[in-house]
């Protein structure tokens, strides 16, 4: 992969003025895991073959036109003489066998790749249930055998570096498609069936993913991020996620929690929030227990900053028209306090 890149980078640089590879988080020409690398190799190979075929035919057409420019004889009536007979047949007689050999080779490579990536190199220790909603991703981490180590988060998928992860794909509504190009190819999320895919990140880092099957009004705004961490860090993160939300300390945040419980908790869960009379156990929207551990809000579309968070809480319809989150009828004070509360959910 590396060696090939060194040859192709100059060409790519010509094709992509001003864009360095590092700025292309969604390209699948450079990949970072065993579920995607063979796909990229196949992609480079077939693309190279395609360009070769294209250039060959294009030059054949151009040279053919150029050849025909010379004067051709006319017949007795002054009409141009017509070519007859099968003198062009070598094109078919040679071209077809060569095409068949190339196609056969491509098919064999395809099948080997297919066999190679359809199963992970070793049985994954971690299984995630990813539920696609219009238009966000719910992610459930399961620890089989230890029920209390199960928790739910959204739009940010943490995985350990160098270990395969199995993903079970469930649809809450319509068909979506789950895709993080540098880690794995697409797998559709279809109601009525549970598709299973897998991937593995070879390097620590953040990988972007996005829904690719048209799923309605805000299909364009249904992204997610895969955060690959060293295993130790990953398990630390997991343990942290299991904890309930801490009780807010500042008066603003305490007031914010009350506002949250009355306005937001019907759709959102914050584990540990509320008291015996009211609980934040809503299932419509993302689980917010550890909201501040996520870098983005609104399904990967906005950075999780105070400003965007406030704007989102106040009027999500403006930022992502049609989303289930309604425009909140909050006073300025309530808004600021809710945001203050949310920012304690780290």
């Amino acid at each position, binding site marked *: 992969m590396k060696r090939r890149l060194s040859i192709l980078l100059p060409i790519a640089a010509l094709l992509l003025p001003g864009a360095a590879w590092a*700025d292309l988080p969604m*390209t699948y020409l450079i990949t970072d895991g065993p579920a995607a690398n063979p796909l990229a190799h196949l*992609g480079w190979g077939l693309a190279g073959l395609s360009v070769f075929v294209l250039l060959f035919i294009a030059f054949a057409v151009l040279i053919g036109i150029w050849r025909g420019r010379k004067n051709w004889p006319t017949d007795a009536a002054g009409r141009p003489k017509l*070519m007859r007979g099968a003198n062009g047949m070598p094109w078919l007689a040679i071209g077809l066998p060569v095409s068949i050999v190339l196609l056969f080779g491509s098919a064999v490579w395809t099948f080997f790749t297919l066999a190679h990536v359809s199963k992970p190199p070793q049985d994954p220790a971690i299984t995630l249930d990813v539920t696609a909603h219009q238009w966000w991703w719910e992610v459930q981490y399961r620890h089989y055998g230890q029920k209390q180590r199960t928790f739910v988060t959204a739009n940010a998928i943490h995985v350990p570096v160098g270990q395969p992860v199995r993903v079970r794909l469930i649809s809450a509504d319509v068909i979506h498609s789950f895709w993080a190009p540098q880690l794995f190819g697409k797998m559709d999320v279809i*109601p009525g069936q549970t598709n299973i895919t897998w991937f593995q990140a070879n390097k620590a880092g953040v990988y972007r993913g996005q829904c690719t*099957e048209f799923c309605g009004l805000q299909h364009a705004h249904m992204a997610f991020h895969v955060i690959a961490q060293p295993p130790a860090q990953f398990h630390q993160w997991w343990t942290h996620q299991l904890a309930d939300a801490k009780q807010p300390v500042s008066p603003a945040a305490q007031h914010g929690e009350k506002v949250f419980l009355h306005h937001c908790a019907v759709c959102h869960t914050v584990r540990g929030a509320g008291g015996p009379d009211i609980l934040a156990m809503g299932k419509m929207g993302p689980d917010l227990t550890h909201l501040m551990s996520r870098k983005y809000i609104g399904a990967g579309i906005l950075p999780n900053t105070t400003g965007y968070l406030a704007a989102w809480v106040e009027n999500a319809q403006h930022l992502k028209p049609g989303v289930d989150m309604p425009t909140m009828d909050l006073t300025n004070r309530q808004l600021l306090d809710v945001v203050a509360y949310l920012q304690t959910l780290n």
Partner: protein
Amino acid sequence: MAEIPTYRTPEIIRPDESYLEKLEKMWSDKPGLIGFFSTVDHKKIGRRYLVTSFIFLLVGGLEALIMRIQLFQPNEHIISAHLYNELFSMHGITMIFLYAMPVLSGFGNYLWPLILGQRDMAFPRVNMFTYWVFLLSGIFLYIGLPTGNGTDVGWFNYVPLAGSEYNPGPGVDIYALGIIFFWISIAAGSVVFIATMMRARAPGMSISRIPIMIWGTLTANVGLLFAVPSVLLVFLELWLDRRFGTDFFDVAAGGHPMLWQHLFWIFGHPWVYAIVLPAMSIVSQCLPAHCRRPLVGQHWVILATILTMVLGFGVWVHHMFATGLPVIAMGFFSAASFIIVIPSAVSVFAWVATIWTGRPIFTTAFKFFAAEIILFVIGGVSGFMTAAVPLDWELTDTYFVVAHIHYVLIGINVFAVIGGIYHWFPKFSGKMMSERLGWWNFWLMFIGFNVGFFPMHITGLLGMPRRVYTYPAGLGWTWSNMVTTIGAFIFAIGVGVFVFNVVRSLKAGAKAPANPWDADTLEWTTSSPPPHYNFGVIPRVGSMHPLWEERLRMDETGKTILDEGPALDEEHEMFGTTIMDGDPDVILKEPGHSFAPIIMALLLAGMFIGMLLEWWWISGAAVIAMIPAMLYWFWPSPEVGRAAEG
């Protein structure tokens, strides 16, 4: 009523003035509006198909330009998400359904009888009916967009997004009913084409002498005959699900959304071949005339055409590689998708060899055909890449596929169609098109197209999904989208030059001779434009290249006879011929002008409007009115026995 003798031996004559005048009078339409609505002349039907489908092309193009403005830069909000989704849905429906096939039906209807040496299609009234249904269904499909009720789930309309739970508005109902309405036109049209090819050719045109353009259109229509019921059914099932609560796609009640995908793509892939094979056969037919030689390996190309369609029924799953099917099944359909490249390669090599060994004349038509070859290869190899299952997991639903579909549909269909118009315009109108404007037209379209659509491959390789109404900055998608938008506008200017050239040439073009390109097939023996009766005496065909026989020294094996022949001059008469040998075995009495086609089409429209509005009494009345309309249509003419005549 005059009794018509049951048997007759046609007299062999050389046509004279009075004979031709008699024919002209016999085959002419009534004047004025009555004639307009009652004509069944295949040439008029063909022209109407061409003009109407081109208007749809322009509308679909406008929709595309609006979308390209929106995508010019990231985070653009010139139009809303809803409007964008409506536009891309209608753009797809318009281009794929309302433009791509009808435009080819236009060529087919105008040219088939002329190329086949006949006076009309097999069922002139059904033929006219297909046009009216096409026109009315096209309008029907468009009632949603201007009223804000356009369908917004894309042309392949996946459930459950298209179901009533997630899409309660009337948009999808308009689409479902309108497209069922439209399929009636397509299915009826394919019956007309197939029956014409089988039973209504010139005497002597045996199966091996049928020109290649006929084969392309025929193959497409045979495919459609079996593919269309699938999509008609699936839209019917969807409409029943939406309006009556049936459970075809409802998982909770035993249905499944994958049923939609299977039935849709069982139709969808043959449909792709149906809209490219006739266009390819236009190239195969016209390119040789501009290269001064017959097509290289013409019988191989015909066989490849048929083989493509047969294989085309076995590759539908390659649209569904990411749906979680078993690996074995995907391997099978992947292999089939690789194999289907082979017959396409036959055509490409045949075209290249024709240019290579011929003497190309640099007409505008030739430029379009030569460009088509190159664009075909680009669309072909990108399709070949998506045939590789694992690679397709990355490519599918990105702009790479958008680039692919546009190279296929514009590269193969639009370029061949425009080249075909330049080629046959003299025959259609009696005027030559301006070659000077043609130069501008070609280069603007060719450069604009490649500037616009080639970068889409790169956009796709950089991971941009299709059908997004806007995209964030910082993902590397900005510059290629900008270039695409610029190219799209250059392309649009090129199309504008084409329209201008057509209009100007109609008014002020040079008068066209009968055979301006020195081409080889029968349509060029008629005057430009052809008389109403097409051929004074019916030609008797001795080879695949009737006008080149002498120069190709083919006249030893068979000689086409044009100047004298059987006189068929009692009402609308033409020969019916045997399938294999083209031996005449009956003198057919073709129906003349009739209001039955438009009445039936309007009643169908009434039925569908009633179904859309759920005013069942309208639908019921329309259906009941169809009974007398059908009786009127099929009423046996007292003089001749043709109760089942179409």
